[in-house]
């Protein structure tokens, strides 16, 4: 692996990624345009939302001018872009705080879930896909394919509710919704925003254990979907690679079968798998919206749905931009890694 990271290749990959950045910037621009337009489509009068419907006409007019709503649309858009790039996503109607501050508060919880779920997906899904491809039509293969099929068919909110019902309500093995039990809330100082890390910093071991128990169910739920997707893609890639002639060459050389599969074949799969893992991460951001709703997990997804139900457009659009940007960023990273890892990508 290290051999691949020669200076020459890193430089070339960086140059190509810069080109990509230009493309990404235009996409981001488009993202902002769409969210801006959505914001202007709202049938609710944004001024009224701020001043209330009992305000006098003068107050209304002052607010309207302050919000820049008298300017032509394209000028409003430029102001909007300027604001966003400076980190100003407006003020939340619900919490009366800047949206950026709100998002910074809730964001780590979602990251906690998404990262854990991706780890589960990678550590369980990829090996499962490999086994499935190697021992095709075996029992394990069929099980893997069923798991994959279910992952594409089961509604995530339903599976979450079922899991809560079984493991929490009936069996009492795992705790219920929330990040920690109710009486532990707001005790630990949120330093990083990730509950488990904060507990370690504050040396609150009891709460930390509680937090770990609480994260198991939502993370496993998301992890299941990640695993289903990754195992299916890995299986597909591995079958393709195992057909190739260089695999025969390796066997002729006398390489052990273990090494042929896990080093040679999987090594060649690793490159497209990077893109797939990135895509799965994006899918998890989506899945977290419903998961957080079911488990009352105070992350970005729950924030989004709450704002939505309260018609807090600034918050909704702000969260949409953030999620869209993360998605773009992750794709960019995966493109870069792809170019670094694949010697043929010129």
């Amino acid at each position: 692996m290290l051999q691949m990271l020669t200076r020459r290749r890193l430089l070339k990959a960086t140059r190509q990624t810069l080109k990509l950045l230009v493309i990404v910037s235009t996409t981001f621009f488009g993202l902002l345009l769409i969210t801006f337009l959505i914001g202007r489509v709202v049938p609710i009068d944004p001024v009224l939302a701020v001043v209330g419907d009992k305000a006098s006409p003068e107050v209304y007019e002052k607010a309207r001018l302050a919000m820049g709503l008298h300017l032509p649309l394209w000028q409003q858009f430029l102001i909007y872009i300027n604001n966003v790039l400076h980190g100003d996503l407006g003020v939340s109607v619900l919490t009366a705080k800047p949206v950026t501050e709100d998002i910074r508060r809730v964001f780590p919880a979602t990251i906690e879930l998404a990262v854990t779920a991706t780890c589960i997906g990678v550590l369980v899904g990829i090996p499962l896909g490999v086994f499935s491809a190697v021992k095709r039509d075996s029992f394990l293969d069929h099980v893997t394919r069923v798991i994959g099929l279910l992952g594409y068919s089961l509604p995530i909110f339903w599976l979450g509710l079922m899991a809560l019902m079984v493991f929490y309500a009936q069996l009492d093995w795992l705790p219920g919704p929330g990040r920690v039990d109710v009486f532990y809330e707001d005790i630990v100082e949120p330093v990083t925003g990730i509950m488990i890390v904060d507990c370690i910093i504050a040396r609150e071991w009891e709460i930390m254990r509680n937090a770990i128990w609480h994260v198991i169910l939502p993370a496993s739920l998301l992890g299941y979907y990640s695993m289903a997707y990754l195992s299916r893609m890995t299986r597909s890639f591995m079958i393709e690679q195992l057909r190739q002639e260089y695999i025969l060459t390796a066997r002729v050389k006398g390489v052990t079968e273990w090494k042929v599969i896990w080093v040679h074949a999987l090594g060649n799969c690793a490159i497209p798998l990077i893109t797939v893992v990135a895509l799965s991460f994006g899918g998890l951001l989506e899945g977290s919206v419903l998961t957080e709703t079911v488990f009352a997990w105070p992350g970005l997804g729950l924030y989004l749905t709450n704002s939505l139900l309260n018609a807090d457009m600034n918050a909704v659009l702000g969260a949409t931009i953030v999620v869209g940007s993360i998605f773009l960023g992750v794709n960019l990273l995966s493109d870069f890694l792809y170019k670094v890892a694949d010697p043929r990508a010129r």
Partner: protein
Amino acid sequence: MKRSDSMDNHLLSVKNLCVSFPSPKGAVDAVRHVSFAMGREKIGIVGESGSGKSVTGRAVLRLLPPYARVTAGHIIYQGRDLQSLSEKEMRGIRGRGISMVMQDPKYSLNPVRTVGRQIREAYEINHTVSRHEARRQALEMLEAVRIRNPEQVYHLYPHEVSGGMGQRIMIAMMLVPKPGLLIADEPTSALDVTVQLQVLAILDDLVSQRGMGLIFISHDLELVSSFCDRIIIMYGGRIMEVVAADRLHESSHPYTRGLLNCLPKIDGDRKPLPTLQRDDAWLEQPENQEEVI
């Protein structure tokens, strides 16, 4: 480059090899009752597509897909019956005992590893040495296949080398563990004609120098006859004839004659070339031919 060989020193002896593949229309017999023996000589296996020549080579190395059914009276390499070996023991034979060069280095080399690393791996499997020593061996081998700047080529990836060079790298990789027998499955078919001759010359030299046996599988009768000591001609999974290369044109077997007559000759008459007439009777030849000249 023709030698007479010593028949009392059988390198590889195959008796009654049969390979069949299941298919929706019933089992397909790819190889039927193939028997031959060879010493440290160059044998060519010639046939059309589907004659079973590649399958024979792979059957010897036990590298056919698991759904293939392989049976044989015996497959003896250097006194050991390969059929009785466990998979682990068989792996020991592969590379160190018998090696194989395949047709197209574009596909037969691992695209994400440098060629040097791949050759090094071939050596390291069979010898426990330091990385440094293995690298030295790999470089030596690259020189042996007449690659002029082995140090540089060592760090290249397969897509960065030409077809001829790739095939030479393949040969280097397969010969670095010093096997006793090399099976070359259409090694020059994917190359330009001029490059073909170069690669063949290298192969010839190395095989002679090391006193190895060579099984050269090809569809090109002319090429094989100029290169090998004896020629096995296959059709429909059976051996039609085994003939010494220098006596090829004296062959009386109808299939061989048919093949020979199809070859354009630069000083032949200008009449249209005859079409090969296939006779289904050839598929029903008696079993247990052990024609050893």
